[in-house]
């Protein structure tokens, strides 16, 4: 259908108005999150029941498949797990001893105890539909006292932080998102930096000064200085070092400890 000249002008003008409105919205929401919070509340309260149902269906199929596939290697796995348990029990005993020793020494030095966090378990019920954003939807919201900025972890380590909350759901920005940044330090060298999402499975560790004796495999932990994550949570390990001859800082690639493709349950931390 060929458009008439007047219709073409009409569409172009309206398009210009809507494009400018989008830019104004973009500018406004970059400073004030109230509007996007409200919109998220409405949209995800509508989608919540469907997401819950679909999640249960997907989980049912995954569990059924898993049960049958993993049954094949069960004997071998059982043997190796028994061996692992024995080794871990030994290690656990040693760590317990060190813990008591550490507690005594801390008392001696009068170091203030770490701030306590309450833990709220949550299940992942949805994902960011776009390929650019890396966020997940969890089945805990305002009703469970979840707030924007709450840190989210899994049994492996850091997952991300809450960015939107509706009564029954919350959106969590995971650490591999390009807009995510967490203050961290390297366990071995104690050098501080900021871990920034790369959009794919690797993150970038920035602002680590050169000549820090960083090695591949070094653990990256939260520093607690961003005021969001408690200190000492495992974020990942150094996966690649690309030395740049000029400049003050090293470019370090970090592999997150959490496998986001297999993540099902998370824990939201709340300050007690």
């Amino acid at each position, binding site marked *: 259908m060929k458009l008439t000249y007047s219709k073409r002008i009409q569409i172009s003008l*309206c398009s210009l108005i809507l494009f400018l409105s989008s830019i104004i919205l*973009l500018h406004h929401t970059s400073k004030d999150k109230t509007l996007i919070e409200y919109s998220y509340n409405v949209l995800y309260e509508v989608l919540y029941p469907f997401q819950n149902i679909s*999640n249960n269906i997907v989980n049912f199929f995954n569990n059924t498949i898993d049960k049958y596939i993993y049954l094949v290697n069960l004997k071998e796995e059982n043997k190796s797990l028994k061996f692992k348990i024995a080794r871990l029990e030994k290690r656990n005993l040693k760590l317990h001893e060190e813990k008591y020793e550490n507690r005594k020494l801390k008392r001696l030095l009068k170091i203030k105890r770490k701030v306590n966090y309450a833990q709220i378990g949550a299940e992942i019920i949805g994902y960011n*539909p776009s390929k650019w954003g890396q966020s997940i939807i969890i089945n805990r919201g305002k009703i469970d006292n979840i707030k924007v900025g709450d840190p989210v972890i899994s049994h492996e380590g850091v997952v991300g932080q809450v960015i939107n909350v509706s009564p029954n759901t919350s959106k969590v920005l995971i650490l591999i998102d390009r807009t995510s940044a967490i203050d961290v330090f390297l366990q071995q060298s104690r050098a501080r930096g900021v871990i920034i999402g790369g959009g794919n499975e690797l993150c970038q560790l920035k602002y680590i000064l050169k000549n820090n004796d960083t090695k591949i495999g070094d653990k990256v932990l939260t520093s607690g200085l961003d005021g969001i994550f408690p200190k000492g949570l495992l974020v990942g390990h150094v996966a690649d070092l690309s030395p740049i001859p000029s400049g003050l800082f090293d470019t370090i690639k970090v592999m997150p400890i959490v496998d986001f493709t297999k993540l099902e349950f998370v824990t939201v931390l709340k300050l007690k």
Partner: protein
Amino acid sequence: MNIIKKFLLIIILALVILFLQGGILKPLLPNILMPNLFLIIVIYLSFYETNVLGLIFSFVLGLLYDISTSTLLGPYAASFVTIYTLFAIFSGRIFIDTTISLIIITAISSIICDIIYMILIFTFLPDKNNISFEILLGSISTAIISPIMIYILKKYYPIKNR
């Protein structure tokens, strides 16, 4: 079909797509191959609903996509409005009635849409090569799905012939 019916249909379709993309496709497909099903509706509207209503629908779809994907409102709304306008103005001169032409048009529009989105969202990207690769692969997956989507849209959102 009257305006209210059309609007409701678009909203329901958008919610179904959000649920499909975020709940089913995302855990199954690699992130790099994630198609943009919203964009296919916008392309359909730009060829078959060439009036202000189609433009407003595209804007609303963009806003819905922004709410569910981004931390900001507007980048997808602006991208979808641009894509709609571009194709609506030239709709009389572009042939999309064969599967191949539809796939090519969708791939091109997906690349344009992602570029506009990127310009609006980021000022500096850490890894530009990787981004261009993602844009390309994403556009291919969207393009491949487009003939099926357009077929569904033609069935449930019937508009007079072009």
